[in-house]
């Protein structure tokens, strides 16, 4: 894992001191809310429906057991005993008091964490494949590149007041587990003629105008990466719209200018930057890469315990993935237990998981964009013991990738922008499809729920996407089908008129039945949808003559 340098530590501590002074000035009346709001947002502090909300960055989704334990302590000491892991690998605390926030930031700084750039119109937390460095498919580990970008983008003087927020994701394999193509910039490490570099995608995003990112460069050399990113951001900073918040993202710029025009502007800017300040030297890259060496070096002989325990075997099959080193496994820790809001973890769960990570996973935990956690390096022989411990914490629900593994934003239960609730919808879906045999029969499917058009619950890229709306004061849910956030990214199609909260589960059930009657062999939901199209689903949902 990356370790802060003395300079990093100083920067974060300084920022904490600065924010303490800003909070004092606000409470004493020396700053108005209008003056204070941009300052608090730069430190990840929002005002939600019932309280403030603090968003803490988990760079590229990687946590040490010490950091996870600290998050648990913070949730107990300053919040209501839980935290919410988000789709961009952050954690949110929903109930901090304003006067406590500097103390929280101070405690975070002690474990090399912060909330800088988790909000505001700047470059946000860099997200990454949660299986980075531990799977066999990747060209190389993308995490060092996330760290290089993080260093470059943190407090970047030119990019602290962009037209709008800016999100970057990095992956390194054909499989996209980071929703890379719905980011403002998506970077994919590839190998071309024995050289590794980046495919660059620009202009992806969700919200009210969803777009899939367009590939604007087939190969950017590693040494040029920061100059190329600087070129993209400079063009966006100059040309992105500032007159209309809904048209301010780079996705709108690329669609207004056209792909070729934007590409040529970026290329000309890049030529001016190339071979200048931000050129990455090999030894610099190597230095960062050294932080991300696997804590385990060699394959070992370690076999998975064989037990006549049905629950353990279901879990092994659903939540455990092969590690790139023989003898080790990766555990997907489900935060989708049937009675818990998706992505929430209690202080007790976090504390005990940090102990498990220390004892069994070389102290590492990862956060996935699908709001689950990962124990990345588990000896095969330890799997049964770890399963027992996770089960006791309700962290071994065997539903990774299944219908109850929903992505869900906080919705109207917390969010000041939401037009409908999303967590209770997710819980109803979980309860309705709880039976393991039903889930297994349905197979891989992604349901994603947003409580408003801002799409924090990624409904546009759900195989089944659910968007909560307000129709004359009543909650109403629009369904889209066929979206995907993986390597074949697609935006879902709206199936028809929306459903009331009461009608929604029946509608989801109908969609599943339509899928099942059209399914051939082992096809999953998305394959069936892509083959048969939306019409059979529409017919079954809306045709009144259909019994």
């Amino acid at each position, binding site marked *: 894992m990356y370790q802060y340098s003395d300079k990093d530590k100083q920067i974060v501590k300084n920022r904490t001191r600065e924010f303490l002074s800003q909070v004092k000035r*606000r409470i004493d009346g020396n700053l108005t809310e209008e003056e204070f709001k941009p300052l608090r947002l730069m430190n990840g502090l929002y005002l939600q429906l*019932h309280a403030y909300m603090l968003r803490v960055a988990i760079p590229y989704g990687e946590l040490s057991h010490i950091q996870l334990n600290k998050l648990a302590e913070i949730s107990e000491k300053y919040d209501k005993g839980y935290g919410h892991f988000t789709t961009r690998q952050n954690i949110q605390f929903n109930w901090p008091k304003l006067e406590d926030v500097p103390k929280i930031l101070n405690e975070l700084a002690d474990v090399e964490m912060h909330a800088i750039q988790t909000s505001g119109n700047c470059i946000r937390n860099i997200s990454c494949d949660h299986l980075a460095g531990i799977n066999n498919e990747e060209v190389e580990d993308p995490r060092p590149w996330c760290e290089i970008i993080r260093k470059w983008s943190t407090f970047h003087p030119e990019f602290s007041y962009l037209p709008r927020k800016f999100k970057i994701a990095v992956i390194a394999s054909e499989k996209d587990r980071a929703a890379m193509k719905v980011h403002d910039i998506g970077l994919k490490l590839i190998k071309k003629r024995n050289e590794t570099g980046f495919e660059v995608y620009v202009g992806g995003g969700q919200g009210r105008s969803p777009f899939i990112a367009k590939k604007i460069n087939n190969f950017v050399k590693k040494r040029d990466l920061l100059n190329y990113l600087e070129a993209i951001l400079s063009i966006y900073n100059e040309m992105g719209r500032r007159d209309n918040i809904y048209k301010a993202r780079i996705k709108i710029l690329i669609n207004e200018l056209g792909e070729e025009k934007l590409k040529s502007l970026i290329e000309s800017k890049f030529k001016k930057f190339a071979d200048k300040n931000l050129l990455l030297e090999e030894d610099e890259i190597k230095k960062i890469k050294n932080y991300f060496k696997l804590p385990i070096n060699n394959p070992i002989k370690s076999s998975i315990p064989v037990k006549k325990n049905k629950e353990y075997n279901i879990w092994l099959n659903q939540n455990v993935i092969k590690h790139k080193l023989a003898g080790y496994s990766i555990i997907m820790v489900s935060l989708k237990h049937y009675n818990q*809001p998706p992505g929430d973890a209690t202080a007790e769960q976090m504390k005990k998981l940090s102990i498990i990570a220390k004892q069994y996973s070389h102290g590492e935990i990862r956060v996935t964009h699908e709001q689950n956690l990962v124990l990345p390096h588990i000896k095969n022989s330890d799997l049964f013991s770890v399963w027992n411990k996770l089960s006791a914490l309700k962290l071994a629900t065997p539903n990774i990738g299944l219908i109850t593994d929903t992505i869900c934003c906080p919705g109207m239960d917390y969010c000041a922008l939401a037009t409908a609730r999303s*967590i209770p919808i997710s819980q109803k879906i979980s309860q309705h499809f709880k039976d393991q045999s039903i889930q297994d029969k349905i197979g891989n499917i992604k349901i994603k729920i947003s409580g408003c058009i801002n799409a924090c619950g990624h409904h546009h890229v759900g195989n089944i996407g659910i968007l909560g709306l307000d129709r004359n004061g009543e909650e109403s849910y629009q369904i889209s089908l066929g979206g995907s956030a993986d390597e074949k990214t697609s935006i879902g199609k709206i199936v028809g008129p929306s459903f009331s909260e009461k009608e929604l589960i029946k509608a989801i059930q109908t969609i599943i039945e339509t899928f099942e009657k059209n399914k051939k062999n082992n096809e999953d939901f998305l394959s069936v949808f892509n083959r048969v199209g939306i019409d059979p689903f529409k017919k079954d949902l809306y045709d009144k003559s259909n019994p």
Partner: protein
Amino acid sequence: MAKKLKGDSFFLSANDLKTGSVVYYNGDDWSEKVDKAKKINRSEIEEYENIAKKFEDECIIISPLFVELNDDGTIKKLRDIIRKNGTTF
């Protein structure tokens, strides 16, 4: 603050600056107790907007808003009911 208001009666609500908690104006001060909230008529909106502004300027509250009420005095909108009662799950 009062731009899109419908209905005839309201509570004045806000978040407490220091804690973020949901508070209601009771005629003198702000309290988390909704049962003590003062019922405000449409004709009084402007007066209470000024009162809210005063408390904002004094750094007591932020984000003031009017909560629409039904004829029987109960809160009308789900968002405001959630603000009053807490999360629904």
